[in-house]
């Protein structure tokens, strides 16, 4: 399967995503340049973490207007998979491919740490490899990760099963103490209504090797392989 990983000026997790895709999943990865209008026939597009355009103004605000984003939007509208990780999630929200916004962490500091996440929601494309309610351990590293939306949007996201990951403690309880950024309702990751576009603040591509402390990010990609590859 072909993965396209977008590099905006200021992206910095692009090579990590490429390594995850090639070294751990054994798939092909294409580096897509922000100025390109061509997704090179990729099946999956990944918007990686980093600080596109220095995160000037708001994270993701400027990247949204990159030429490649038109292609990403078209890809998403075709129902094909798009994954936004960290800064990529912010770009997806700014681009309105996902609802809501990511605001400055409630603690006002950048946070790099390991968090627990509870798997829920109904996005088979990404979640098939997990059990509902399973507790994952993934890294986070962000300064603007507080998910926010109005109550109606939040209700809708929940009703539609679009909330796919919530911050929780080691036993799966969603608590204030386990919420690293003050995200509303503990939301760490969501999908669009169709379930093909996913955005998440934690880094699944940093959790694909036991050597680095966790392999809990692998099933996300493997679900995709099983589904889209089939």
């Amino acid at each position: 399967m072909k993965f396209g990983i977008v590099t905006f000026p200021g992206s910095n997790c692009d090579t990590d995503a490429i390594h995850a895709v090639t070294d751990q999943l054994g798939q092909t990865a294409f580096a897509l340049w922000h100025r390109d209008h061509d997704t090179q026939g990729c099946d999956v597009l990944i918007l990686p973490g980093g600080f596109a355009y220095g995160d000037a103004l708001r994270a993701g605000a400027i990247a949204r207007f990159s030429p490649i984003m038109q292609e990403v939007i078209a890809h998403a509208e075709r129902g094909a998979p798009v994954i936004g990780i960290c800064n990529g999630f912010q770009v997806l929200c700014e681009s309105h491919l996902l609802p809501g916004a990511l605001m400055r962490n409630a603690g006002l500091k950048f946070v790099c740490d390991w968090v627990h996440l509870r798997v829920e929601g109904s996005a088979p494309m990404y979640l098939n490899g997990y059990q509902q309610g399973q507790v994952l351990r993934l890294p986070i590293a962000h300064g603007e990760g507080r998910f926010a939306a109005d109550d109606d949007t939040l209700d809708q996201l929940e009703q539609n099963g679009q909330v796919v990951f919530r911050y929780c403690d080691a036993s799966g309880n969603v608590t204030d103490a386990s919420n690293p950024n003050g995200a509303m309702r503990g939301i760490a990751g969501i999908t669009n209504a169709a379930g093909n576009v996913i955005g998440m603040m934690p880094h699944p591509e940093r959790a694909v090797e036991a050597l680095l402390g966790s392999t809990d990010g692998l099933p996300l990609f493997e679900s995709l392989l099983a589904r889209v590859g089939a």
Partner: protein
Amino acid sequence: MSTTISNVKPRPGDPAITPALVAEHGITPFEYDKLLGLLGREPTFTELGIVSALWSEHCSYKHSRPVLKSLPTKAPYVLQGPGENAGVISVGDGWAVAFKIESHNHPSAVEPYQGAATGVGGILRDVFTMGARPIAMLNSLRFGSLDTPRVRWLVSGVVKGIGDYGNCIGVPTVAGDVMFDPAYEGNPLVNAMCVGLMREDELITAKAEGIGNPILAVGARTGRDGIHGASFASEDLSAENEAKRPRVQVGDPFTEKLLLEASLELIRSGHIVAIQDMGAAGLTSSSAEMAERGDVGVVIDVTKVPVREEGMTPYEILLSESQERMLVVAKRGHEDAAKAILRKWELQAEVIGEVIAEPVYRVVEGDRVVAEFPGSRLVTECPQYHPEARESEAIVALRARDPHAVPERAEEADAVWTLVQLLSSPTIANKRWIYRQYDSQVRTSTVVGPGGADAAVVRLRGTNKALALKTDCNSRYVYLDPRMGGRIAVAEAARNVACTGGRPMAITNCLNFGNPKKPEVFFQFREAVHGMGDACRALGTPVTGGNVSLYNENPQGAVFPTPTIGMVGLIENIDHVTRSGFRTAGDAIVLLGDCTDELGASEYLSRVHNLTIGAVPVVDLDHEKRLVDALLAAIAEGSVRSAHDVSEGGFAVALAECCMADEDHVWGAEVELAAATDVTPRSLLWGEAQGRVLVSTPTAEAVLATATAHGIAARVIGRVTKEKRLIIRAGARTLDTPLVPLSDAYFNAIPALMQRAATATA
């Protein structure tokens, strides 16, 4: 010896060269005479500015170079020693590691956020201009007491500055060290280290070469910021200086990220012959140094330099320290290809000059020559000083005081109270509040990040190897005994690296001292450097580069002398990576090394008695070398489950840390320290005798045998327990406590202090 140079004329509007103006530029009458001799005429204002930068301590090392020459710099694997932007060592399989540490103390004292951020930016450029991709950052910090709002303001700003810059550029910050002491009040130290990786054949140096080759200014535009930063860094931070402080420089990590990618692409492209960061003293020092290394002349036209503000004079353009700029020597005819690469990364590049055969350093402004010096002599003939060195008698007296004569406080009857005091001392307490603000994982190669082991471990992708990295310096030791302190700084860094399974390979160092013209400061400098050299020779870790930061003084006096060591170690087999925390109940706890009766210079005396006194623990360098070998052998045999050295706070603190360092679990321990009877319980528990490591192991016999074979004393002192309790029997005294109060003290101390208000104004 006047040459034919005669076409340099003052610019209209230039101030007249008066003794006052010369003095304002930090040039002494002696140096000015030397300059007149070199030029054979009076300098122009522009030339005065250039010389003041190049002859500043920061650029010229005029007080430090003779002492630095005593350091060992060679090993078969050293590819590049001191003198370039960064040192480089080979790590085998065609891979090389470039690394360097640098200070940004003065800028951080004035504006902690930008000061620290631009410090990180500068050291990153030093590494990637060698052709290496930065793979890890470290930081070594020294502050006054966290009890004052101003120090908290400094800490917040510095940490945020380091984090924001490294995080944005995508280089993980993986390790460091922090110490708090009133000696740093008003003059914090901010040292940043960068480590980069490259193929050996990609090494490029900053040597201007090839007559007729164009010189390009690359990256950000030149503004009026930071003019005279280099000379500023060479003065005391007095109130008066603070008033005339130059405008601070503002970092732009986003541009730096582009510059990093573009520079590496340029270097690989074959279109350029040299590249150098425009760091301290900006365009002036970068161009003069490149010319000097290449033994060629250069001509620079300041009207071609892209500027941010209108009406900038040659003086300002030459001395600006605007960040995120590079100087590149391209191959003739390749400038367009080079520019195309830069454009792809949205960067500006302009040809601003040329390499010339004539051995002069010439600056023109269109048709007008505004500065011209005879070749590289400006760099090579910088005055050198051999200041007087004399130990301060006050310090001799402090060192002579007997710590055993210090009566215990009443509370100390309960050793748990003392342990809690030490674990909550900000110097010892867990530094998570700091490193949680650093992305330590980006690049997905951080095997052990901050907090997990005595050094950070970063794997070398595509090989089975990893690097072990750590900065260290116990400056209280250096203050009380600079020679011994200098040795210990290296020995401790080596121990920390070895505890993770890494063989110490080489060091970089950042020498943070006071005013070298004061005999007692120069004594500290000379002795500490010699001590560092002693240890480097004994441990086989050459010095590949470093940085000198003098004049770290404020009206209250000099900081503790702080020769920060940045150590790089090599882990040959990634399976050998070893952490510091206990991992399995029932494991034996083995103490390598001996408990001797040394309480002097300890964190205990400082924290509990507010005293900086006593003899510094003696470090036996031969023992340290064998200790490193023994540890590495035991780790390679697979018999070591965890390893942690005994440092600040002594044995009890080290043992408590072993119980708390496992991210997922807190363990207990029960040990018996039946040391020689003449060692007092106080020294047993809190003394900082050197050369000791705590190892946990399921196979104690194997560890003991390996240690003995290396001539290292080793004994089983107890066990790791599942019950979360720490029990230490130290001679007549027993310490017995649940872990909870210890972990509360250790993890909450810094967050609790930092929660209080912070403000820039005292």
